[in-house]
């Protein structure tokens, strides 16, 4: 079937099998390999992307379901995403890096949806993302830092 999916601001028209998962569409069809696969039961969140601004697990969405929708991935050049990425670097919010794209996309969603996410809120909203390396502490610190920056309490260009 033909699908027309907007990924990071660009339209992609492709002829695909209806059974193709969105994550395969991104990784195999578009070569956007930043979105990862960590499980086959929709638990780990390594595959998190935004669909029309809402975070979803792209391993559990058919590419067909994304037809005529907008997808944002870790490869997007959204300035707010850059601030989040920088915060993860500064706070050492990653070790092996495998969960990281999913964590960052979920952080993007958290910050787009909450004015002032406190630590409790952040933790609850990261429940769908597993990390085996960091014990989450530095990830939570990264989200907090990104939030402060986005709010402008820290000069972003610093």
């Amino acid at each position, binding site marked *: 079937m033909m699908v027309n999916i907007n990924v990071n601001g660009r339209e992609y028209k492709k002829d695909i*099998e209806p*059974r193709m*998962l969105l994550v395969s569409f991104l990784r195999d069809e578009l070569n956007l390999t930043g979105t990862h696969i960590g499980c086959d039961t929709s638990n780990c969140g390594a595959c998190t992307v935004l669909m029309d601004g809402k*975070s979803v*697990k792209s391993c*559990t*969405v058919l590419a067909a*379901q994304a037809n005529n929708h907008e997808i944002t991935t870790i490869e997007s050049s959204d300035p707010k995403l850059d601030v989040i990425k920088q915060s993860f670097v500064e706070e050492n919010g990653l070790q092996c890096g495998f969960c990281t794209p999913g964590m960052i996309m979920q952080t993007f969603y958290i910050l787009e949806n909450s004015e002032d996410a406190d630590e409790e809120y952040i933790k609850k*909203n990261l429940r*769908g993302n597993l990390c085996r390396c960091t014990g989450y502490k530095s990830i939570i610190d990264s989200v907090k830092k990104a939030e402060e920056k986005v709010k402008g309490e820290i000069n972003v260009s610093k």
Partner: protein
Amino acid sequence: MYPDKFEYFAPDNIEGLEELLDKYKDDSKILAGGHSLIPLLKLRLTSIPYIIDISNIKALSFVDYNNALEIGPMVRTGEVASNKIIGDKCKLLADAASKIADPQVRNMGTVGGDICEADPRNDLPAVMLALNAEFEVTNSMGKRTVKAEDFFKDAYTTALESNDILTRIVIKNTENYYGKYYKYTTLSSDFAVFAIAINMSLNDNKTVKDIGIGLTNLNSTAVKPVEVENYLKNKKIDDRVAGEAFNLLLKSCDIEDDVNGTEKNKEKILKNIFINGLKEIYEVL
């Protein structure tokens, strides 16, 4: 971890959907948010030749209130948790929806899908029982109303036939009711080990006017312990009454030793959350 082949349709109106369901019958299945169906397809625990995506049907996505709360089946559970009307009119539903899985799952999964899947561990069936919800069911022959208590037949089995569509959820027990969803999990899994949905209203003399209860994962499907509801009506809730209610409640449960714990341990925990829950809601009212 990749589904078997299927054909895919995405009609944008109910008539188109009805036609496809009539044509493909048992070989077809509705796809709402896909967060029960796609995991099964991926593990190849099921294979369905014709998948019909209903997300393009605008008439299935709505939240309204005129004397009763009316919700379209395609409303995502994340929206149910945060929707202002639902939050105002039905605390129990909003609370339960916020306790489903994680934000990503709630951004896709739908209220209709959670109900129709009838997974004994799903949260919303018990909530619907506690709310005495009514379901509008549509097929090419017409519409009918099915009460929640007649809807859940067994694990993964409902009153729906292969060409039936859940088109509307109606909740009347909203004004003056307060409720909450008590969900007990393991440390690492989202799904309920068991959960209790309670929806209550009081008379002026502080006795229970009406109460609805629904139980998750305490039997092969969600159950409504009608005896307990009847027992509690017109009573004031104190430790003795709550304890007696719990003894009746156990009759609706089928608790066994399993990987989550022994029957005894589970009963003890259940008793605690039920009694504390009843008292908490009673006190809020």
